[in-house]
């Protein structure tokens, strides 16, 4: 380099800071990204030069040092510009300040009824009930800025009517929310597409009543297991960053409070959850249902919602030795807290996620001795 008297000016300062930044991240990323890259290389089906490059590229960005902080900055910039549509419609903010993953501006005109027909055929006399949990876009409540059109409510109505026409009982929670004058602002998480644990808990109580009234199922301990006084509501403030929130960061989305609802009374379970436990596990509700790791993990982006039942798996079964009747639940992630609470009432509770379950439906029903089959949202083959 040409020898010249070193002069500090705006350009040299900028260059110094820039070089310091890229060198810092060069070394910082070595520790964080190399692990992710290594995993991706191991997971790749065949090792070619192109697959190696792909693994390095995706792993490097995925494992980028302080990635979530950069997402916070990205979201902060979007907030500063008062954007309601972030990225290519990745996240939409409604007028009530809640976040949505994209927007359904299309209209459903057809419905694949294969799954429900297959169940109807295999179930025989076992009653089938479809719980439409509704969605975050609530009729007469959720509004968007001019130009954003969501057909989610209309699409929901289309599905509900279609399923009813097939002779399946439907519980439309949107309608229930309206009848009960529910506080719409508290039904769903702001940063996530799921309902709050409290909403699932209230739905559980409603469902038990419906099972008793309409399906002649009796639950001897019902008064105990639906009484709020018999439950512990543990509040965690600013504790949950949902899937929408993770895409725009905390500066845009904020953090949701999270409530863990646990029975105060004694419970006695055996869990056949081979995804998590090698052998059937005996224990209390908290032992077999609740993931303590998801609650104690200090990482901001930990999915607290899956503190109930750990997340989505193909099949698992829970036996509550104090419960009565057997239920089969076909669910997506909405069902995680609801199924957890329903396990307090039923003797045997089998949970299927059809995005992952590939076995025979008739065999499943034959082996189960079910008193009722409940679909939670998952009404079509994925």
């Amino acid at each position, binding site marked *: 380099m040409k020898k010249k008297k070193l002069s500090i000016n705006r350009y040299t300062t900028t260059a110094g800071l*820039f070089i310091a930044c890229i060198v810092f991240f060069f070394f910082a990323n070595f520790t964080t990204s190399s692990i992710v890259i290594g995993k991706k290389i191991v997971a790749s089906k065949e090792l070619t030069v192109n697959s190696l490059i792909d693994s390095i590229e995706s792993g490097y960005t995925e494992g980028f040092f302080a990635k979530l902080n950069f997402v916070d*900055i990205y979201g902060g910039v979007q907030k500063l510009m008062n954007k309601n549509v972030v990225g290519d419609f990745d996240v939409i903010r409604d007028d009530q300040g809640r976040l949505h993953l994209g927007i359904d501006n299309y209209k459903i005109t057809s419905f694949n009824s294969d799954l429900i027909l297959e169940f109807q055929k295999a179930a025989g006399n076992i009653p089938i009930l479809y719980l439409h949990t509704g969605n975050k876009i609530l009729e007469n409540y959720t509004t968007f800025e001019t130009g954003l059109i969501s057909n989610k409510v209309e699409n929901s109505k289309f599905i509900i009517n279609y399923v009813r026409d097939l002779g399946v009982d439907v519980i439309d929670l949107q309608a229930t929310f309206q009848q009960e004058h529910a506080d719409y602002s508290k039904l769903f998480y702001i940063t996530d597409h799921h309902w709050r644990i409290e909403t699932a808990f209230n739905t559980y109580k409603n469902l038990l009543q419906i099972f008793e009234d309409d399906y002649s199922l009796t639950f001897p301990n019902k008064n105990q297991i639906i009484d709020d006084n018999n439950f512990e509501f543990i509040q965690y403030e600013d504790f949950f960053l949902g899937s929408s929130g993770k895409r725009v960061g905390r500066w845009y989305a904020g953090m949701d409070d999270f409530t863990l609802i646990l029975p105060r009374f004694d419970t006695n379970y055996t869990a056949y959850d081979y995804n998590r436990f090698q052998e059937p596990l005996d224990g209390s509700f908290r032992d077999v249902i609740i993931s303590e790791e998801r609650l104690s993990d200090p990482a901001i982006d930990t999915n607290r919602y899956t503190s109930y039942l750990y997340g989505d798996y193909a099949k698992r079964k829970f036996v509550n030795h104090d419960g009565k009747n057997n239920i089969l639940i076909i669910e997506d992630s909405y069902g995680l807290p609801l199924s957890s609470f329903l396990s307090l009432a039923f003797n045997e509770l089998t949970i299927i996620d059809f995005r992952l379950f590939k076995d025979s439906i008739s065999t499943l029903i034959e082996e189960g001795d079910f008193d009722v089959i409940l679909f939670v949202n998952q009404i079509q083959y994925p």
Partner: protein
Amino acid sequence: MLFSSSIFLFLFLPPVLIIYYLLIKYRVAQNVFLLGASLFFYAWGEPKFVIVMIASIIINYVLGLFVDKYRENKFKSKLIIAITVVVNLSLMFIFKYLNFAIFNLNKAGLNIPQTNILLPIGISFFTFQALSYVIDVYRQDGKVQKNPLYVGLYIALFPQLIAGPIVRYETVADQILNRRESLEDFSKGCCRFLAGLTKKMLISNTMALLADTAFKMNSSSLTVTFAWLGAIAYTLQIYYDFSGYSDMAIGLGQMFGFKFLENFNYPYIAKSVSDFWRRWHISLSTWFRDYVYFPLGGSRVKSKFRLIFNLFIVWGLTGIWHGASWNFIAWGLFYFAILVIEKLTGFIDKIPKMFSFLTHIYALLAVIIGWVLFRAANLSAAIDYLKTMFGIDATAFTSDTTILYLKENMFYLLSGIIFAIPTTRIFMKYTSKKPILNKTVGYLYPVVYIILFIICTSYIVKGTYNPFIYFNF
């Protein structure tokens, strides 16, 4: 590898800079290292295409030696130049235009199977540089390189490899061995790079989302206002994308001691289409001027017909250079038509000064229409889009979609318009005369740049939309 990627910024660039400056006392070693780094940079996108690049380097190195050796023999030297042109353009034809040619021949009744040949990134840029090397050696505008690695370094140097500017051999011939790195140049190079990165990441990529929505929209749902918004967004996208890449390339070049010529000079303030092309992609227009237009006779020809013919050749080639599609050819011929009118009538000069704003509006309108031809999926889509813009067969004048996109992108749209005119230059000139203000700007300058860099990094890490507009080039 894209400049606007985490791999380039944080994995490739730091070690390349460190090793390069550790070799500061060994110019040959620096050059060999830069060539190796450049080939690695190119191979990252598609490893097999590096063979095409190396083949181009070797062929043009040999042709350069021959043209230098037989310089005194007019016939032989001209024959070598002819071979150079044929070989390089054939390479480009096979990779870029063969399928387009087959497609059109099949439409004319033949039945030739299409090939699976993919387009090597930046082939149009490095082929033109390779041509420039042999021609400049022939014209004695630069010395022949005895060492093939230096020809390789000139053709493959990573800062300008995939998106230009097209660096002429005469510009850098001496710099390959005799460039001088300095802290001042290095620092200004960093700042230039950061300015380019900001242009690309924040303005161009945001405008790309808007433009893509408009151009992908079904003509039955596209309104007049949204069509205009989409066309303006693309006008800004391509400028900030291309000039952003050029800024990054020029900045990177400076960091390694190279001085490349400017590629853009605020093209959207042009007073005429001729003026626009003196400001837009300067390295390409001067390349065509010096290697095609002037050898054909340029404007100094006896007949108007010959002038029109020369312009037709240049603009036809300019169009096809950008991509193997009829809309690129139409785009080139669109400019041919306008430039013929401008040159033959001289109407721009006849407009009184007080109405000079009309010439700006005319030039900008022509450029926007040109970009519609350039951006649309094909020629018929471009015509449909233009019809909607001018209210012909449009379903509606406006819709809520226009309001939504305007509101959501207002900041970037305004920034795009403001920085497309020399506001920064005017501001800097003004502050330089006010000592206190100048000092304040001096303190704020690094802060603003680093904040912008952190924001750009956040966009990169987040994985926002980051299209690469030069795949066709």
